[in-house]
């Protein structure tokens, strides 16, 4: 077959880069408690360090199957989870590690699940793409695009019926805005005024394809909001403060009966789509620019500017490193699940019998 032709219609890495917005410096002066900010700093680090460890374990061939990391996108999970009430609901995709950890899933159980161990949060049965921890409000990671937006509606509807003021927050990617279920979910959320917040993490790519090539509007979520009677909301998904404030507003609105929101958080993944992907279809300049907008050093600087001593931050980083090391030990030490697990929990009676 002929050699590759350097044509941006073909080779997406040759297209003009899509660069990040500059940091909104005014965010530093937003009235957010230092405790909340430090908590967010810790979360950013937890998500980052844990994910890097997952990647290392993948390279060591201990994580089988596939993994989808959120490296670079941590501010979205961080800002939202910080704005949520413990009994609120999270719905995420296969790229759900950050969301799971941010809601309080045990890092060791999460890692053990990736390793397919019986001490995994799902006993090894779900795997990387399905992290779920109902007790923590982490209502699942869903690996087929679209469905979970509809399911999140159901949880919000249930909260509405039960009168609990709970809110469901549903995360998904830019590519997901083009699937039918997105449309059905948004419409239903609006007509029933459901307490649900839809969060599109626009990282500019659906797997290996630039989102604009396959999307009729420039902003995949925001430009669709009016089709559901909703306001277009865009937030810098690499700024934890901006995300937190936007999240809080939308969640408060939902909690107080104001109905759903659709938020587009602009962000970028540092690595490839999934484990084996080097992410080469992206212009080098684009990757560099976004790595320069990494939420973690930026937030580190902001906290310093706001007066947090460096050693406080270093302390947090070290503490998280310890957590991740312990999680790794926990995960590695777990036994592989066996026959008992195989036939467990198909049905509510705990078993798998389908005939007498």
């Amino acid at each position: 077959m002929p050699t590759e032709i350097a044509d941006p219609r073909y080779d997406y890495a040759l297209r003009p880069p899509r660069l990040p917005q500059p940091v909104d410096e005014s965010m530093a002066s937003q009235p957010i408690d230092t405790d909340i900010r430090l908590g967010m700093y810790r979360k950013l680090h937890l998500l980052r360090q844990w994910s890097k460890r997952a990647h290392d374990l993948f390279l060591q061939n201990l994580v089988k199957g596939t993994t989808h990391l959120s490296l670079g996108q941590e501010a979205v999970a961080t800002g939202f989870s910080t704005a949520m009430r413990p009994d609120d609901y999270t719905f995420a995709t296969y790229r759900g590690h950050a969301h799971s950890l941010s809601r309080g899933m045990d890092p060791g159980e999460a890692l053990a699940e990736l390793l397919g161990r019986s001490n995994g949060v799902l006993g090894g049965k779900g795997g990387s793409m399905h992290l779920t921890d109902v007790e923590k409000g982490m209502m699942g990671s869903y690996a087929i695009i679209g469905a979970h937006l509809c399911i999140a509606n159901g949880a919000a509807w249930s909260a509405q019926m039960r009168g609990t003021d709970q809110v469901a927050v549903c995360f998904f990617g830019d590519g997901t805005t083009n699937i039918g279920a997105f449309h059905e979910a948004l419409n239903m959320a609006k007509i029933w005024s459901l307490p649900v917040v839809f969060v599109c993490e626009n990282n500019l790519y659906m797997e290996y394809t630039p989102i604009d090539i396959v999307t009729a509007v420039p902003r995949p979520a925001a430009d669709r909001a009016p089709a559901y009677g909703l306001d277009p909301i865009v937030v810098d998904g690499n700024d934890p403060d901006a995300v937190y404030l936007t999240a809080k507003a939308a969640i408060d609105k939902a909690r107080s009966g104001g109905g759903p929101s659709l938020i587009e958080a602009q962000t970028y993944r540092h690595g490839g789509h999934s484990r084996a992907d080097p992410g080469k279809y992206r212009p080098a300049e684009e990757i560099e620019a976004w790595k320069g907008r990494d939420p973690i050093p930026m937030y580190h600087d902001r906290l310093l500017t706001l007066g947090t001593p460096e050693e406080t931050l270093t302390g947090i980083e070290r503490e998280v490193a310890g957590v991740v090391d312990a999680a790794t030990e926990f995960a590695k030490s777990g036994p592989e699940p066996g026959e008992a697990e195989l036939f467990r929990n198909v049905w509510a009676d705990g078993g798998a019998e389908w005939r007498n």
Partner: protein
Amino acid sequence: MAQLSYREAVAYGIAQEMRRDPKLVMLGEDIAAAGGVFKTTVGLLDEFGPDRIKDTPISEQAIVGAAMGAAMTGIPVIAELMFSDFVAVTWDMIANEIAKTRYMTDGQVALPLVIRTANGGGVRFGAQHSQSVENWCMMIPGLKVVAPSTPTDVIGLMAASVRDPDPVVFFEHKALMAMSEEIPDGEIVDELGKAKILREGTDVTIAALAAMVPKALEAAERLAADGISAEVIDVRSLMPLDTRTILGSVSKTGRFYTVEENPRVLGWGAEVVSIVTDEAFWDLDGPCIRITTPHIPLPAAASLEDMAIPSVDRIYETVRRTAGGSA
């Protein structure tokens, strides 16, 4: 005792459960004010109000997804899909999400929900509104599947389905809507996973489902006149499957027939026959025979549809011809 049609039994069964469990809700297209296109939900809006009986947009994925999300957070739900053909539009939600979530989460997530839908042909609606898709659902691990053939069974199995902590697909048959019978007083609660022997017999066993049940019974009547004693089993529940009742009957008769409305290839009878020939092999006096709709889409014209779906004549003649030796 009241005389109730199959159609009325649906609303009756739902109402019984909604009175029992104030959390139970239902959603679907045109189910509230209109009472459903098959009039199977008439009266429910009046009794339970618009917050528990919800009209939806034409958004089957959103409907079934909402049912799932509500069920996993403590609200039992009945979702209606107007025609069972539309199961396909939300198949991802049913086959990939609802069926698998309990297992994938190792039991963290419970899904007490029922998907009700009008199944089957005989009403000249053509290939996209007449399918028998019970076999689609039967083949997915994690789904329970029932298909009642009488008004009383509709009520009792509806109760069993609603009370079951697992997701159940509940097939109401379009051709049975007008069938009517006396139903017992008081609460009616049945059990999933139980077939029923509707007619005892000694020569052949005929297993049938839903609209094929009355046909099998009529054929058995005619066979009896010819001296062939047919045991007729209403399978009722495809998942769980009551193999014990079926195997017990075959071990007695030695001859096994299925009467299936689903198209031939991988109809529910293929599973049942495979089990029977595996586990009752040495009891069999001859091959198991599946009487099915041919492996074609269902045609609309009355004359064609009547040829396609198993008829009393076809059942009678097939058994007569093949079981002759054992009669």
